[in-house]
């Protein structure tokens, strides 16, 4: 069966919440404790979480909050850069569904497909921690536009090319590169 995904489990802390124990470090972890059948949730920094988990008599489970971990993994100027660009976009809203950036930050949901374009920079930074979203390399709709299939195939081949070059399998890489060029031309031809 499926676990209850109440907001408590999915807190996507933006780094502004401080540790509930030391009150100094940013809270990066969600600690679940079950003591005498009573469940409690706390948001802690990694070192406090470790100490509390060790001291808890009963069940203690630390759940990481991924986006904060990604942010912690960045150097300080990079992390600040994300915040600065967030501020620049704060006035943006989606003309199709009326979702604003602050709605998105608060709820974590977008209202429509167009939102992915309107809030592209914020979404790429918050979902994948990079300027571009993580490339989708899985299943694609069978009935979608041919361009979608071509772009998808090209992304798959680009990934393959990077891997082949890294393994120094240059002959195979050349074949993949030729196929990429061919698909690129087809895509441009279709767009023209």
């Amino acid at each position: 069966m499926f676990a209850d995904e109440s907001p408590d489990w999915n807190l996507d802390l933006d780094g502004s919440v401080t540790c509930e124990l030391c009150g100094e470090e940013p809270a990066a972890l969600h600690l679940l404790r079950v003591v005498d059948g009573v469940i409690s949730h706390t948001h802690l920094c990694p070192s406090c979480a470790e100490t509390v988990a060790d001291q808890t008599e009963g069940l203690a489970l630390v759940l990481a909050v991924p986006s904060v971990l990604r942010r912690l993994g960045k150097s300080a100027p990079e992390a600040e850069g994300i915040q600065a660009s967030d501020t620049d976009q704060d006035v943006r809203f989606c003309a199709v569904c009326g979702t604003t950036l602050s709605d998105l930050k608060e709820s974590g949901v977008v209202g429509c497909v167009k939102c992915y374009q309107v809030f592209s920079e914020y979404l790429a930074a918050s979902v994948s921690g990079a300027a571009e979203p993580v490339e989708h390399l899985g299943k694609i709709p069978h009935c979608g536009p041919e361009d979608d299939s071509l772009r998808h195939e090209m992304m798959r081949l680009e990934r393959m090319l990077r891997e082949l070059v890294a393994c120094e399998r240059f002959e195979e890489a050349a074949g993949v590169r030729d196929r990429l060029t061919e698909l690129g031309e087809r895509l441009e031809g279709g767009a023209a």
Partner: protein
Amino acid sequence: MTSSVLTASALGLSRNESGRRFPHAEDAAALEELRSGVIEILTGGSWDQPWHVHDLEKMDAVEVDHLVERGLMTPAFADRTGEGRGFAVYGDGEASLEINGEDHLRLLAYRRGGDLTALWSLLSRLDDGLETVLSYAFDPQWGYLTARPHRAGSGMRAYATLHLPALTLMGRLSETALELAGQRFGLTPLWGGLGGIIQVSNLGPQGKPETEILQQIGHIVRGVIEKERSVRKMLFRENPVQSRDQIGRALGLLQQAWSMPFHESVNLISAVEVGIDAGLVEAPGLGSEPTFGLMSRLQPAHVVVDYMDRRVGCLESPAVDEQRARLLRELFAGAVIMS
């Protein structure tokens, strides 16, 4: 993959129709139009097995909870209110479909044991069937678009349910949670973490084909099972008396209690399962049923529907706890802890 630690697998596949806003931002008429359109596809299309459409308006709390407990509906969908919601079960419960929950569509499948790949094959096939009529919201870079951008990409979330009482008890899951978070996988407690029942699942777009994500979950699961087994061995080696004492006390309560809340039963069965797995406990009354199966059928709506002929309308009634205790007394009557 079979193991008494790996207890169940679940898969969800989220999709949205292009040209419509996501359910929370869409108007009631458009959602209703989508719902009736999808139901038409389910009832009129050519499927290997029939779809059974449920009328959510006519279902009471026990029926809804029973679906959640059977892994056919997500708790989030059960708690949701809003226009245009629909729900259907495929075959005898092989899969199900939530309509207008957080996304327009979410296909679900749940099985005991560990075959996530089979669940993916089934849901992907059902997805193909729906796509013959619906046009999905898709972006070549992002993948399938969902209301929650963290779920975009494959739109797939896979869950492997593990029984990890030793790792949980020893607080050893924190290091695993941190390690997994870096690879975009997470640990989520089922039933609030009671009994050490934990789910490993993928978080966020992975930039990998679905089958690779499932393989990676399989790899993670094998590693976590190994850790659980080694911590259990360490517990028995370093604390033999306390370990046996905990298992024996749990068995005593299961055999003698006359009122048993669900959360307590999960903790006790979890402890006894550790004893069974280590060859310390013999419980002939259980037969070949895995203890996770037993925990599942002791959930409140299961007790009311399966053992009380729905005579009780309230899942919190003391009669449910009494019935649960009766079942446990019968099942564990002949169980013994080996000396």
